């Protein structure tokens, strides 16, 4: 393992470059004076200025965030309660059945989800627009929340609940004081995932959005089909920075929690930590 270290690092660096080239490319040309993505003729910030003045795009960006925040919130609520429901269903078969339904949406291709939701809204007579997009985003985010919360529930010590009841807690108090605090990391992870799912989604939204409403993905798609516009590059830079800082923040918080946990750990585990 140590022998191959050099080649291994080289390989990882190559993969890293491959993965980041498109992003770097986008960002680099966002400062291009010539309006194309291949000849760099000089530095300019005009595309950023154009971006800032593009009110249509700004409204769409705000709408996208609105949908993401709302759908993630509702999906997290429903998904968490669902996970608790699955966890407490007595029979193994019921659990597996519920999990099966849960996973259908998770593995289904976007196109299928989009098409079938479009069918659903049409049959029911629901008008396509903000609410159909919101409902769809809630719907396809719920399963990931369940998947993030359920393991936390399963890790939870069942005796804690018995203990709480023994100490006189009502069901509601058990939920509020014992279960929820214990699964909070899972709920937060679920919210984070639901939020990114919503922000990133293109295909499902594309099917159920109708004419009056658009999210960033849909807007980028229609603009990209018309050809290169460096305003999109400028937007990429902004979105990348946002994503980067979000993920960096998430990592930092997690790491802090981890080190704090380590510090509190049993000192007799020392040997485990030291020996390889």
């Amino acid at each position, binding site marked *: 393992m140590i022998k191959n270290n050099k080649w291994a690092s080289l390989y990882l660096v190559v993969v890293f470059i491959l993965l980041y080239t498109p992003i770097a490319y986008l960002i680099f040309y966002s400062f291009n004076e010539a309006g194309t993505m291949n000849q760099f003729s000089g530095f300019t910030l005009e595309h950023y200025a154009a971006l800032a003045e593009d009110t249509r795009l700004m409204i769409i960006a705000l709408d996208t965030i609105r949908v993401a925040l709302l759908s993630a919130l509702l999906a997290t609520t429903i998904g968490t309660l669902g996970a608790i429901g699955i966890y407490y269903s007595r029979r193994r078969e019921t659990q597996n059945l519920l999990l099966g339904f849960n996973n259908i949406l998770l593995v289904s291709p976007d196109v299928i989800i989009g098409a079938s939701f479009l069918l659903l809204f049409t049959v029911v007579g629901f008008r396509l627009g903000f609410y159909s997009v919101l409902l769809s985003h809630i719907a396809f985010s719920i399963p990931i929340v369940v998947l993030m919360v359920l393991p936390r529930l399963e890790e939870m010590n069942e005796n804690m609940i018995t203990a709480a009841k023994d100490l006189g807690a009502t069901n509601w108090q058990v939920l509020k004081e014992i279960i929820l605090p214990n699964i909070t990391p899972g709920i937060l992870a679920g919210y984070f995932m639901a939020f990114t799912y919503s922000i990133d989604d293109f295909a499902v939204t594309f099917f159920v959005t109708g004419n009056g409403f658009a999210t960033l993905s849909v807007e980028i798609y229609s603009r990209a089909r018309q050809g290169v516009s460096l305003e999109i590059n400028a937007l990429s830079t902004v979105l990348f920075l946002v994503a980067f800082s979000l993920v960096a923040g998430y990592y930092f918080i997690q790491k802090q929690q981890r080190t704090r946990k380590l510090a509190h750990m049993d000192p*007799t*585990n*020392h*040997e485990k930590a*030291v*020996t*390889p």
Partner: protein
Amino acid sequence: MLTEEIIVSFDQVEKKYDKESVLKTITFELERGKFYTLLGPSGCGKSTILNLLAGFTSPTEGSIYLNGEDTKNTPPNKRKVNTVFQDYALFPHMNVFDNVAFGLKMKKLSKEDIKKKVSAVLKLVRLNGYDEREITGMSGGQKQRVAIARALVNEPDVLLLDEPLSALDLKLRTDMQYELRELQQRLGITFLFVTHDQEEALAMSDEIMVMNEGEIVQTGTPIDIYDEPINRYVADFIGESNIVKGRMIEDYVVSFAGKSFQCVDGGMNPDEKVDVVIRPEDLVLTEAEKGALQIRVETQLFRGVHYEIVGMDNDGNQWMVHSTKKTEPGRRVGLQFEPQDIHIMRINETEESFDERIENYSAPASFSVEEGDRLDG
């Protein structure tokens, strides 16, 4: 043991992780065919010694010799050393046969030879007929046997066992202790066994190395270590003991708890401060007047085989007594003991000078202590 052949030797071995020293200049030798135990609390570096010998990690300083050869450039797969891991480390995607045959396949033995050897070793660990069993679904004890078989089938020069019994329950653990000991004696392979359990160490080993904070504190047979602990740490770690502060008056005379007693140790400076150890089972409960020491009983616990009685003497020392006789808390009782029951430990004595002193001042003919025999005021 016909010849005292050295099979493993550690020469000034030091190991650091990120500047933190896990092992501090360790030197020892292992002879062929003996059962050795590394005993110490977790974090003392005993597993590191195994990892070094197996080749999973290399020493920061010093050399390790296997069969007289420096192992510096020998990768783990080329060492005639095999390990029984703490979590068994059985391959879950292989059945029992494939697990045990793994090492032989790597050596490219013929199919027939492999079959023969595997079934022989499975018989040895009393798992004949388990060849086709999957690993998942086996009990801890069975996994343990597979792990031992998998290592033994390669006929290693040294078998390393990294706390292999710690995951088993008490009854199984005791059974396995007998079995391992018997196995080792039958096969004549050198075993290096790592544990934090002193009972395990005492029951199985030819020789015990007691470790603390990256150092070997004392090496010796179980009886040596139990009877002549080098310092407070070893005495405390091996079995229960009463350790009180005392003063050496002259050779074979020690004073503690406000009285002087005859003992069997010597070689210290006059008036030197020492630690005095008396094992709880060496203390005999008597009526107060008849005892060499008097204590007031504070607590008494029934332990099954004996009562565990704790009391305080006039000097404020606590004494624990293991007695088959019963007493009552609050009562004054006497304690009797023989000179050879008193173990004297010098403070900060090295193992070298300890061994030398023990050699020169080996126990003289046993004195008997008169009840309440006072030599000084």
